[in-house]
């Protein structure tokens, strides 16, 4: 009597999903078929090039590849795809730059510590998270001594740093420092004190109105002309200052956007409870504002991470710079596809990780229009 009828096959399961999403009407079906055709053409080719016909360490004759002439595709144009041996041979440089080999364990420890420091930020449910967080706060200091030297470690000049090391140092420092500075600037710009608000506005507008390249040049080229000769500011530090200033200005505007989305009732409620300016902002306003701003915060952070490749123009060899340097070695001329592919892949892994993290945060914090209501 009360038998439950199943929904029609065409609306559930895989078939239903296909129908609904890929073949809903004829334009939809046409686009789907076209995309499938393109993928059919492209995927086998890219798989063949990157994996099946590629050289990893040995060429098709079984010799270990030491220069581009030994790549299968250069021995026999009919044979062979990518020549990943260049990445294999240059892996050290891509990851550590010119860091001395005997000291490289320090970079490895710093990389491991970075992962450990990020852990409590990534997983809120981590046991003993509080203690991990303490570690996160002191990590920059430890990393500085580890990488640069001092406290018994031999000094390794930043001129020897390169590759992923420089990319991560620039990206992480820029993002980490810009966040608090950006918050202060955003609050400052909205301040009722005209001097503070004017100064913050001026700073933000000036930095935002100038391309990053110009700031990098200013840091690299102009700064030492102003400084007396005896005072030598490290090249990487100068670039870091420029990157941080740039990122702070953008971060400030992102957070200001969040602040403006907070209804005035929140301010009034906090004030009516007798909260001071700082307590109101720290406890009521900023947590909500930052929650709303997560997507744009991650957006500008990813942007900065990729923009760090611009440091090549002031002569610092980051991941991309090492790739270009490799291309200029007569042993590896002409392997630009492999090198740019590898560099893009590394960047993609990091930026994709960042965007996934932002999605996770958004889900966890349930950001959206109905915030506060649930």
């Amino acid at each position: 009597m009360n038998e439950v009828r199943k929904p029609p096959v065409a609306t559930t399961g895989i078939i239903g999903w296909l129908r609904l999403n890929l073949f809903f009407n004829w334009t939809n079906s046409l686009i789907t078929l076209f995309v499938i055709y393109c993928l059919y053409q492209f995927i086998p080719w890219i798989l063949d090039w990157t994996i099946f016909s590629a050289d990893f360490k040995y060429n098709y004759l079984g010799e270990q590849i030491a220069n581009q002439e030994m790549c299968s595709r250069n021995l026999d144009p009919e044979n062979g795809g990518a020549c990943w041996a260049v990445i294999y041979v240059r892996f050290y440089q891509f990851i550590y730059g010119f860091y001395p080999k005997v000291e490289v364990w320090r970079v490895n420890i710093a990389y491991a510590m970075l992962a450990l420091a990020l852990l409590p930020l990534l997983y809120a449910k981590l046991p003993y998270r509080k203690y991990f967080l303490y570690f996160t706060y002191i990590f920059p200091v430890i990393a500085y001594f580890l990488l640069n030297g001092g406290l018994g470690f031999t000094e390794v000049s930043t001129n020897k740093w390169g590759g992923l090391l420089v990319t991560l140092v620039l990206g992480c420092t820029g993002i980490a420092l810009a966040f608090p500075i950006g918050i202060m600037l955003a609050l400052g710009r909205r301040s009722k004190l005209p001097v503070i608000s004017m100064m913050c506005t001026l700073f933000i507008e000036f930095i935002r109105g100038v391309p990053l390249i110009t700031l990098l040049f200013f840091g690299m080229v102009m700064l030492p002309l102003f400084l007396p000769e005896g005072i030598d500011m490290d090249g990487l530090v100068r670039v870091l200052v420029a990157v941080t200033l740039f990122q702070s200005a953008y971060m400030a505007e992102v957070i200001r956007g969040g602040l403006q989305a907070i209804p005035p009732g929140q301010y009034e409620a906090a004030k009516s409870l007798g909260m001071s300016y700082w307590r109101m902002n720290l406890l009521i306003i900023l947590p909500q504002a930052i929650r709303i701003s997560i997507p744009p915060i991650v957006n500008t952070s990813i942007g900065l991470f990729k923009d760090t490749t611009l440091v090549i123009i002031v002569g610092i060899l980051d991941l991309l710079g090492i790739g270009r340097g490799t291309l200029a070695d007569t042993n590896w001329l002409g392997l630009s596809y492999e090198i740019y592919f590898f560099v893009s892949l590394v960047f993609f892994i990091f930026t994709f990780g960042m965007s996934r993290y932002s999605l996770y945060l958004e889900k966890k914090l349930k950001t959206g229009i109905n915030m506060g209501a649930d």
Partner: protein
Amino acid sequence: MKKLLSIFAVVAFAFSAHAGTLDDVKNRGFLKCGVTTGLAGFAAPDDSGEWAGLDADMCRAVAVAVFGDRSKVEFITTTGKSRFPTLASGEVDMLARNTTWTISRDVNLGFEFVGVNFYDGQGFMVPSALGVSSATELDGATVCIQTGTTTELNLADFFRLNGISYEALPIETNDEGKENLFAGRCDVYTTDASGLSSTRAAASNPDKWVVLPEIISKEPLGPLVRHGDHQWGDVVRWSLNAMIIAEELGITSENVDAQTSSNVPEVLRLLGVEGNYGEMLELSNDWAYQIIKQIGNYSESYEANVGPDTPLEIARGLNALWTQGGILYAPPFR
């Protein structure tokens, strides 16, 4: 406190301004040499992270002259835009960065070019299938050309002088020019001859491309130092000259030890057996011996980095000794 600091800084500045670059380098314990961020054959990191190339050898030669040790040099990478301010601000002691010697750079920018370690010039590269043997046969060709460079102006001059027409395909970087040429979007690629050679070497089949014989501009590339510090300029100048003279005299890194008992007076002067030329430069007397021993003469450096046996395959051409049809010429060592 702040005032005190700034006074201290001014005093420090005054002191450091008095000491010459040579003394600064000696006190520091190593040479800071500005090189490119990577240019095939001139300066590029090798697989073990050591800088190699004609310009890198120039840096090492100066380090050897001062310290007798080829490893006492720190390579600072500079780009076309950052090289001059880096030298002017004292961040590097010298540049060996395939920089063209021009009057404005020598005079107006306040630098001192101390010599030429590579005579380059703008050339043309075409596919061999085009069947062209001279640039004057390129009427109506599409030319890939980097915008905003002197090469662009040289190109226009050359084609106008020869009364032939061309179509320019503007590009931004060397990589872009390479891709466009290989893809057949332009018939001709023009840039410095050394750049053409590295582009050709990067092709999957270099024999499919030919560099035409015409060289249409002068691009003397050489090391430079800050203007006014002549003592330091002399050290760099004679480090380069020592390598060229060594080639003239047939001294190589292999036979240098045997040559110390030579009976040719100039050999003995160069190797520091006779005379006190090292002392004049405030260097040790065997400075040139050490350069030849540790780096080699000019020819050895050339052959190892850009010569016909390397993938770049650049013939000596203008860079041969004056006695062998080139224009490489160093003043006498006496």
